[in-house]
């Protein structure tokens, strides 16, 4: 029984992998068409893209640095989506998280690193969670569509954070719209010498494992998935759907806040205006490509991070605008969605493979 289930799972995962690969190929073919139309040789453009993303240790670590905020925000978005609540507000939550974390991290408290750094991380999570709480409360208590409220909160949050670096967070005595540099005791440590790779990546990986366990192995995770896939059934079976939604959104916002926090404490080391354009929206694509599965989100974030970082090199070498990444990402989203609804029949081969596998399992048991 157990073996059959695992094969079923294997089949599902294989289907995901195949459809994701197909969508990535489709989007690359379409962008190759765009490049050709523009008069750039797509082969050389993609070669630069690949080299920039994975070519050497510096490029690869830069890709992972770009992947880190996408991973954290993507994990949060995927978590909320699993509960059936659309958190389009990761952008605002990420900015708010970065702002509060910067405030805590620029205080010259004289605290040791073991206290100051976790404090700053917690502040970022709390701010993100708070910004996510408002729309979730409005949804649960008053029935307002969370999509529209989270989008409005994005604009309000981003403008407010941009104001903060002109206002109360501006470096004392400075003229530029930027905060004071983050105090050394609040910085995320570097993972590899001479690169920008910082411990934010580890935070993302640990977060993915935590979310995976929470979703798949706990009662709360089961309840959350029930609420997401069939709210009415969940309600009739006595689950508290409202509370579940609010908790899901708080976790989601905390992860988005952490995404902004890690970017500041690990990489940028001070807060700037528009420091992370569109990360919260790109993370939606990451969550979708990762099939709302924490492990899938990690892989998708690394792929998107590589795409972002490689595109910079591509622009320098061939003059193709970085913004082409948006087209690639959009086509990936649309084709992932499209292929996920088409049932991919792997044909009799897999079925036969099932039978063979089951047969061998029986034999093993007998032996």
């Amino acid at each position, binding site marked *: *029984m*157990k073996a059959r*289930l695992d094969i079923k799972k294997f089949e599902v995962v294989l289907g995901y992998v195949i459809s994701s690969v197909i969508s990535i190929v489709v989007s690359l073919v379409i962008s190759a068409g*765009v490049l050709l139309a*523009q008069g750039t040789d797509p082969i050389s453009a993609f070669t630069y893209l690949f080299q920039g993303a994975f070519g050497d240790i510096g490029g690869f670590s830069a890709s992972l640095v770009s992947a880190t905020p996408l991973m954290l925000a993507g994990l949060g978005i995927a978590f909320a989506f699993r509960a059936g609540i*659309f958190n*389009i507000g990761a952008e605002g939550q990420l900015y708010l998280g970065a702002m509060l974390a910067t405030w805590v991290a620029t205080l010259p408290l004289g605290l040791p690193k073991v206290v100051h750094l976790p404090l700053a991380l917690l502040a970022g999570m709390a701010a993100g969670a708070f910004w996510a709480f408002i729309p979730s409360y*409005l949804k649960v208590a*008053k*029935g*307002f*569509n969370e*999509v*529209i*409220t989270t*989008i*409005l*909160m994005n*604009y*309000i949050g981003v*403008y*407010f954070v*941009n*104001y903060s670096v*002109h*206002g109360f967070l501006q470096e004392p005595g400075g003229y530029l719209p930027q905060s004071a540099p983050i105090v050394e005791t609040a910085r995320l440590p570097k993972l590899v010498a001479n690169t920008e790779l910082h411990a934010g990546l580890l935070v993302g990986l640990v977060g993915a494992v935590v979310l995976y366990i929470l979703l798949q192995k706990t009662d709360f995770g*089961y309840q959350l*998935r*029930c609420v997401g*896939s*069939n709210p*009415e*059934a969940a309600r009739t079976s006595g689950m508290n759907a409202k509370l579940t939604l609010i908790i899901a959104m708080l976790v989601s916002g905390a992860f988005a806040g952490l995404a902004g926090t890690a970017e500041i404490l690990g990489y940028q080391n001070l807060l700037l205006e528009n420091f992370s354009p*569109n990360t919260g*929206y*790109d993370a*939606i*694509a990451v969550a*979708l490509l990762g099939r709302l599965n924490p492990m899938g989100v990690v892989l998708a974030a690394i792929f998107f991070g590589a795409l972002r970082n490689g595109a910079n090199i591509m622009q320098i070498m061939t*003059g193709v*605008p970085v*913004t*082409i*990444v*948006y*087209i*690639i*990402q*959009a*086509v990936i*989203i*649309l084709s992932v*969605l*499209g292929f*996920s*609804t*088409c049932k991919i029949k792997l044909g009799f081969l897999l079925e036969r493979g099932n039978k063979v596998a089951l047969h061998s399992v029986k034999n093993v048991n007998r032996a």
Partner: protein
Amino acid sequence: MLSTVLKMLIEPDFLAAAIRLTTPLLLAALGGLFSERSGVLNLGLEGMMLMGAFFGYLGALYTQNVVVGLVIAALAGMVLALIHAIMSVTVKVDQIVTAVGINMLALGITSTAFRVIFGNDLQQIESPGLRTVNFGPLSELPFVGPILFNQMSIVYFAFLLIPVVHFILFHTHWGLKIRATGEHPKAVDTVGTSVYTVRYWSVIISGLLAGLGGAAVTLTGINTFYDNITAGRGFIAFAAIVFGKWNPVGTALATLLFGAGDAFQLRLQALGFKLPYQFFLMLPYVLTLLVLVFFMGPSKGPVASGQAYVKGGSKSKVRQSKLKLLKREVNP
């Protein structure tokens, strides 16, 4: 200080600006109504507006003819709407998620094409823009003249569209079909009308009008383009539909409120208030959120909104199969 602000609110200058700034929202929201009423959520309005804004500018610049620009803007909105329709009606993907994809696609297409055509230094070349319509002596009238008789043609088009859309939706056979499709697609299917055809056309019309709305951003004064120039107006138009309870007149009033909010923040900045400008930029979004929370009960849209229609399949069947899947996942 308060009296200055209050005085400003009844100045013809402010009211004229409010009407002008309402126009893009109004066009997009009236378009969105068709799609919403037919049961397809259209959060892609933002992307469709952005396409219209860019291609309207491009068309007007290359042909030096604003009308051609408007036509191209409408076509660009329709092409994006067609993708939305294919994804959400035929492929039956979640309509909100599709919209996220097509909004990103629009951002990618417009900003990439802009760089490819104009180079990376993004120099601003002005295209010809829409002109104000001259009503002769009427335009000279005090107070009413500048507000009502000194606007651009697209403004009149947008406001005339309110009764037209109302008539189409509530007094024609076609409008009945659209509304019925949004409320009870199965019944529509049963009487032999194709749910898919109705939804396709409704979404495409919303793309047409949203494209024009986008052109109304670029071709009424700025006459140029920059990245993400629509800045969330499509989402505000979507919110206006919800405020307006899926009704053309209500929707129009809601867009007028946001247009006024936008004009208000511009005036306040000009008055030299000692507030950081980010708060002024925030104002229309805060206003939208506050109106939503304090003045609007939760309103229910068309019943079938957001659900893909599966011919011959019933909702309960889908639910049962989902439940089965869930059971299998939980108790192996």
